[in-house]
């Protein structure tokens, strides 16, 4: 009799599948990015068929290549910005929790400042200030996603610092850095990793929205936001495939990341790791 895989195995499997799917899309999209820009007016406005599973648009661009390339751009931007954001959050959290009251107040104030401004507005402002384009989008997203994670990490650290084993280490004369390294960091890691992974979907969705609004990449680039905003003009003519496939893939990618984050949390969180 074949044993049903236990929950841990199933989680690991799901984790593996999501990572595989997302990396496949990233790599495939990267390879297709040249093809995604090709315009061929002899094949314009084709509905989905065997040669062009996602159809073609008004300039005869292959929407399958374009969608994958767009998703790949989104994923790569998401990876870059989420990592930067997460590290900013980590540093900010550490500063707030370990460098005394003034640093805590300053960090808290920065967090409130960034969270106080409507997110999309702040994104637009930063990316405009950085001269739009890819650099603007990346800077904008990287600099606006850290506050909530920073706040979480700070609270976690404050709690950890009051834990008996940290207190004892202090009394035994352990150095500050050593305490951070050996006692605080390992406990923080699961929070950090989960936070990092859960930043991805936010970053991707924000990349799509800012390019949708036209503040991001130039319109010949295959970014998902651009694809979706272009498709709007063609919906009235019945070209549903321009919006449906890219939109569905975006949602799919985002939900894959959520699955990934959730499963990672289950595996890393001491509270659920043995369930």
């Amino acid at each position, binding site marked *: 009799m074949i044993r049903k895989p236990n929950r841990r195995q199933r989680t690991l499997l799901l984790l593996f599948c999501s990572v595989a799917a997302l990396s496949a899309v990233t790599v495939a999209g990267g390879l297709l990015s040249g093809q995604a820009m090709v*315009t061929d*007016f002899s094949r314009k406005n084709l509905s989905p068929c065997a040669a062009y599973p996602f159809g073609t648009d008004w300039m005869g661009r292959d929407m399958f290549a374009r969608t994958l390339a767009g998703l790949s751009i989104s994923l790569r931007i998401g990876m870059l910005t989420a990592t930067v954001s997460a590290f900013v959050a980590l540093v900010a959290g550490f500063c707030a929790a370990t460098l005394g009251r003034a640093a805590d107040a300053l960090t808290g104030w920065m967090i409130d400042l960034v969270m106080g401004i409507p997110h999309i507005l702040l994104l637009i402002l930063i990316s405009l200030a950085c001269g739009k384009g890819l650099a603007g989008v990346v800077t904008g997203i990287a600099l606006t996603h850290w506050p909530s994670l920073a706040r979480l990490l700070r609270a976690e650290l404050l709690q950890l610092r009051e834990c008996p084993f940290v207190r004892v280490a202090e009394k035994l004369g352990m150095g500050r850095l050593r305490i951070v390294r050996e006692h605080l960091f390992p406990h923080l890691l699961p929070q950090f990793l989960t936070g990092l992974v859960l930043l991805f979907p936010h970053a991707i969705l924000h990349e799509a929205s800012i390019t949708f609004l*036209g503040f991001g990449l130039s*319109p010949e680039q295959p970014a998902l936001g651009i694809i979706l905003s272009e498709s709007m003009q063609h919906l009235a003519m019945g070209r549903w495939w321009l919006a449906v496939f890219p939109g569905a893939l975006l949602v799919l990618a985002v939900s894959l990341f959520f699955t990934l984050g959730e499963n990672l949390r289950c595996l890393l969180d001491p509270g659920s790791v043995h369930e």
Partner: protein
Amino acid sequence: MAMGPTSEPEAGFDPVYGWGAGEHVHEPLIQSTLTVTGKDLKIGYDLAVAMDTSEDGMLWTVEIRDDARFSDGEKLTASDVAFTYNTVKAGSSVNDFTMLDHAEAIGDTTVKFHMSEPFSIWPYTMAVVGILPEHAYDPSTYGQNPIGSGRYLLKQWDRGQQVVLEANPDYYGEPPHMKRVTILFMEEDAAFLAAKAGQVDLAYTAASYADQAVSGYQLMAVETVDNRGFNLPAERPGVFPEENGVPVGSAVTSDLAVRRAINIGVDRQEMIENVLNGYGTPAYSVCDRMPWYNPASEVAYDPDGALRLLDDAGWAVGTDGVREKDGVRASFHVLYPTGDSVRQALAADFSNQLVKLGIEAVPEGVGWDTAYDRALSEPLAWGWGAHTPMELYNIYHSSPGGSSAVYSPYYNSMVDHYMDAALASSSLEEAYKLWQNAQWDGETGVTQQGDVPWVWLVNIDHLYWVRDGLQVAEQKIHPHGHGWSIVNNVDQWSWQD
């Protein structure tokens, strides 16, 4: 009828603030003008009954009819005309009236325009300036409640939605057939859906909708001079001074052979099929079919000739298929304004066609905030086409005080000379000839045998869904701008059972 949302006059129906004039010229309808442009774009009369210009071009005398009345019952006199022109000169945000010194009324029916410099095409300016009532003009309210002597009265204006015009019962000319005209402002897709739902009698549309069918409607295509073309910076970098660090000039397109090769190496008909679904005409100049157009601008598609030009000029094909000469790669961006899908597609098709010539032209979308600066060193997809030869001047003439044309680096003293002479000439017929000489005089100019500082590609047909039975009167060639031009003669439209 449905028009695009950008057609709604932001500042209202006040000629001082751009109603009828500016980039998208059209007849002001609510007001009368002194002259009108006919179907052949020659000058006819509206309020004027005679006009004359002095030998040196510094004085224009216009006689006006004496039976015109404003919609509030007051008589329209020469002093209203003088008041209008002086007000426009003082306050207009759109019209450039530097050539007018002042206007003066002599008696009730004679106006004298004292010019500060000769301006032979003044009648074309007079065709777009609506006459204001001196007794009832208040700049703060006139735009919302215009009083005019034109064919229609403004009945109602719901900002952002619609304008309702009603025939002026006191109009001095032929009474309008169409008694009531409602104009809705909506986006392309909304206009299409409105036609599909049968809610409008006429809706503007674009070539991308042309393969759709709307039952009960015909697709009407109007020929235009609404052209699209690319500037080809005609000087090397460093020849003209840079301002604020913006590069001026291009190492590739400054080679005359490259510009000539592009002009004959692009298949305009293919472009029209690809981008405009066939709804367009090839463009060879900024002013095709206007009275001041020089037919010498026309070129035939000659891909072999284009390749030969490049080979002879020393542009050798490199290993990657891109030509090279003296270490310069035949490579540049072709820019287009973001959000304009037609120009984006034109840039893409242009780029595809240039590949065959061994020229790498990478399309890139730019916002209008940077487009003007970028165009000084790289080709940009422009749209022009106006009912005045001034456009030739704006594009090809060196800027006042500068040595190069404003939009794209170019300078030719003969071209400048002809256009200056055209403006100074005392008769329109003579001026037309000089405008044509500026394009090509047999030795120099801006055509294929000349300098080709711009390459013109297509004139975009203006497309409309027209309800069956609506007889739209014959249109004059539309200028740039897909809005009010169609209603220029709405008073002559009719319904057929």
